């Protein structure tokens, strides 16, 4: 791993979330300065901020892209108790000339009475749907029935979790064998400890989400949760950020004929647990093939976890702050590429041993 490029973010306050679009050609950032910025990668690889606008009247916690099948659509959620959906309008020639794009608010989702802590678009095969969760303990699922009209969103489901919610994750599996599923994590720190991860599954018959499982072993506050891409497996993999990094497998138990119609039951196994972050873990996220999990924690590092072919999970990489201040507030855009500054140490030692012995 190496730092290929740096981009002056130019937010006036703390950045809470960064988000790549599906193709990795655009990104969005959100901040306590109540704004969202969108960045575009040009042909030569430079990143330019093409839009920056005030989105909420409070800190913006999360920003996320819809699948490009639905156009250029963003969702954001905020301390101001709302989530919002934004759509890019193909610019007037003036905007284009200035390299700016124009985003309009298509809807504000105002159902929550408390801070909206997470927002996630559903897997694309479910249509244009998004889920929000909030500190009042409710997961809300919205749908835009007409993809050409994003101003209409209907609240389809409200799932009460009874605990302040911090994070949600859709199960990405598009297999017909798997019903839509959403995992919810809670960072409720009240003393009467309860299990902090619940999994809800959509029931075709009742047309409602019902609780399928509760991960009883996770009792500490949970800050983030992520299903892995499915890769055609029959079981699911779920990563959890709590006081440590945990990876669970959820194997659907074959339904008995009598209990058909009820939610799927799962055999749940913990396959990895790492406390390398020393304290709280705040984010977990899978790479696109689900082979590497990244986690971010109180040690200030991002750690990468990968299973070898024996299914043993190991830390394979660490991104760590070097602590030295950057004296470049005046720096513009991406004028600080440090390409190739960071060849892995082991390679250096190999290289040292061979060049030292001059057999070239």
């Amino acid at each position, binding site marked *: 791993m190496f730092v290929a490029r740096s981009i002056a973010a130019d937010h006036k306050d703390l950045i809470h979330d960064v988000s790549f679009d599906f193709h990795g050609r655009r990104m969005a950032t959100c901040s306590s300065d109540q704004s969202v910025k969108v960045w575009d990668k040009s042909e030569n690889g430079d990143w330019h901020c093409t839009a920056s606008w005030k989105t909420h009247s409070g800190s913006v916690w999360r920003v996320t892209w819809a699948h490009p099948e639905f156009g250029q659509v963003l969702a954001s959620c905020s301390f101001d108790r709302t989530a919002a959906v934004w759509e890019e309008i193909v610019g007037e020639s003036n905007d284009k000339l200035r390299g700016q794009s124009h985003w309009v608010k298509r809807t504000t989702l105002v159902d929550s009475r408390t801070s909206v802590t997470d927002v996630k678009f559903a897997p694309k095969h479910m249509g244009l749907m998004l889920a929000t969760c909030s500190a009042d303990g409710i997961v809300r699922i919205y749908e835009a029935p007409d993809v050409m009209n994003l101003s209409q969103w209907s609240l389809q489901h409200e799932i009460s979790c009874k605990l302040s919610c911090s994070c949600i994750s859709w199960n990405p599996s598009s297999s017909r064998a798997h019903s839509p599923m959403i995992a919810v994590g809670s960072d409720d720190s009240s003393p009467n400890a309860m299990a902090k991860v619940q999994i809800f599954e959509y029931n075709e018959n009742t047309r409602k989400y019902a609780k399928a499982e509760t991960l009883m072993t996770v009792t500490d506050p949970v800050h983030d949760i992520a299903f892995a891409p499915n890769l055609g497996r029959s079981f699911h993999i779920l990563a959890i950020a709590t006081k440590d990094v945990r990876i669970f497998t959820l194997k659907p138990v074959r339904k008995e004929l009598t209990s058909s119609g009820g939610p799927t039951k799962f055999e749940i196994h913990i396959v990895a647990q790492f406390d390398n972050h020393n304290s709280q873990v705040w984010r977990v996220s899978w790479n696109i093939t689900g082979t590497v999990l990244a986690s971010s924690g109180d040690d200030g590092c991002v750690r990468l976890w990968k299973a070898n072919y024996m299914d043993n999970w190991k830390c394979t990489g660490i991104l*760590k702050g070097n602590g030295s201040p950057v004296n470049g507030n005046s720096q513009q855009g991406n004028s600080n590429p440090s390409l190739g500054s960071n060849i892995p140490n082991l390679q250096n030692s190999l290289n040292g041993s061979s060049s030292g012995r001059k057999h070239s």
Partner: protein
Amino acid sequence: MEELDGEPTVTLIPGVNSKKKQMCFDWGPGEMLVCETTFNKKENSETVPGCPFIYIIRKDIDVYSQILRKLFNESHGIFVGLQRIEEELTGKSRKAQLVRVSKNYRSVIRACMEEMHQAAVAAKDPASGRQFSSQVSILSAMELIWNLCEILFIEVAPAGPLLLHLLDWVRLHVCEVDSLLADVLGSENPSKHESFWNLVTILVLQGRLDEARQMLSKEADVSPSSAGMCRVLGDLMRTMPVLSPGNTQTLTELELKWQHWHEECERHLQDGTFASSPHLECLCKIMLGDEAALLEQKELLNNWYHFLVTRLLYSHPTVKPIDLHFYAQSSLDLFLGGESSPEPLDNILMAAFEFDIHQVIKECSIALSNWWFVAHLTDLLDHCKLLQSHNLYFGSNMREFLLLEYASGLFAHHSLWQLGVDYFDYCPELGRVSLELHIERIPLSTEQKALKVLRICEQRQMTEQVRSICKILAMKAVRNNRLGSALSWSIRAKDAAFATLVSDRWNQSLLALGGLLGSWEAQDCRSDLWARPCRFLRDYCERGCFSDLDLIDNLGPAMMLSDRLTFLGESLGSVPWTFGTVVGCGGGRCCLDFSRVFFLLSPNSKPHRALCARLCKAYFLVTFPINFKSKEKRCKSRLRIKKLPCPLYPDSPFTYCLICFIILRFLGNSLKGSWRLCSPFLINT
């Protein structure tokens, strides 16, 4: 089976203080985003300014190297060829083929090394020069390891030939001697050259005894006092029994002869034949395989594996493969002498001498920054049937594990991803699903690229990816108001609902057909009844050019998909050859006589009554006023059609309720040629 693991690599993010802040991040298809943040919302974060940058983190730096790109490109061809080697080939022919493949891989590495070396020499600034040089030494180490693996695992050289291969291996990789040789021979008085004895010693150490003998004769020529000694040593060199490839003598014969020769050398040393010349005596000791004498030449030997091979040459020339590891280990220990500890390269070579393939691969994947080497070497060894007993993580084997890693790395690059496709294809377990996940993330920046991605998906029946890509393109086109393109993409995505949405949008915007088709159409266009505008018409009206020829060619009979866009065929059921059947049987690509098309569409009218407009060279838009009398009833009930008089043909006995746009392409020259129907689409309101 051990794990493929090492210590995690640490990447430093400038400006982020990990003691005080945390990092938020996101995965992209080939890159990661990282940025400083504070997650704990409850504690009020300090107001000290944080790191103002967002960082893009990439995985494999080597993927972005211009020179290594050649390595990736050329080895891709070898890899694909190897996968196609016929399984039936057995025994010698198969082995010969695998050795040839291995040599091909090595020659690609060497070519790349050569180029990297040139780049290092030509580098303008010292930093990039150093970087190129370090790449040269990495490539050199790769080739060294690969070559040894080739000898031991692929060639599987037996006792006797084994040593010859190892000698070649050392000669190939310790090659400064050649420039030294040229240097000395080029000097006025070679035997007085300051490096003369070093050169002779190196030649002996490498077993290049003929050349050593020639050098000694030069010494003999100028120094009569030592001429006799030189001749004796030269004779010993000449008579040393060696296995030559074409020779039929058995190992036992060789061993006997060698023993005899060895004793003769020993006797000369005992008799003090060379006592008056320390140089010659030293050479004789080397030829006796004297360890102390060899170790005195550490400087010239460069490394322990050279020491090993020289030692074997002069003391165990018929070493068996199975005994190699013993000599290798003791050579390493003797050479390093406890002064330094083995480095990664040493461990890799040692593992090879121990015939521990898995250890070789494991150590290599730890020591090298990219997956190219381990993926290709492992694949080759797997084709040698050396890895089959090891079943790994969910059914996938190590070969596949490494190939997937390598291919994923290629997918991070804007053009190398195309090579990655083939690697995924040859991974039976997870190759397909990995390709599916990667390929849909390829940015569809140009239509050309999109078509390339689509072709790859279509060849592999990845229907969901094809659908999704077409849908993305359709959405993109709609957003840019390119409705014709949007329609064609959504038809290709088999997305009838979306096609209808697009065609509805046509309805909403009016086509400025006036200039093109005359007031007749323009008037009709304003009524709901008539045709909807499409992009190419509008483009033509606005810019006088025609931008989407490809799409028009691709529209074809798929227009049937949306029920809003059915063909005339359905409505003109009474006509024996309907438009629909023409399109249906010809796939929209049949050559038709223009007038015949017209006749099919409108049997009662005469060809000249069609409106024909040239859109651009060889493309014509034809608009037909269609007589719909016979179907009036049905249409009335369904569509509430008003009868409109045709302004162009006021006397026309027909009423028109349909209009048909056809794009015809004229193939051939203007005198002789045929009309090809490239877009027989009809708007049936």
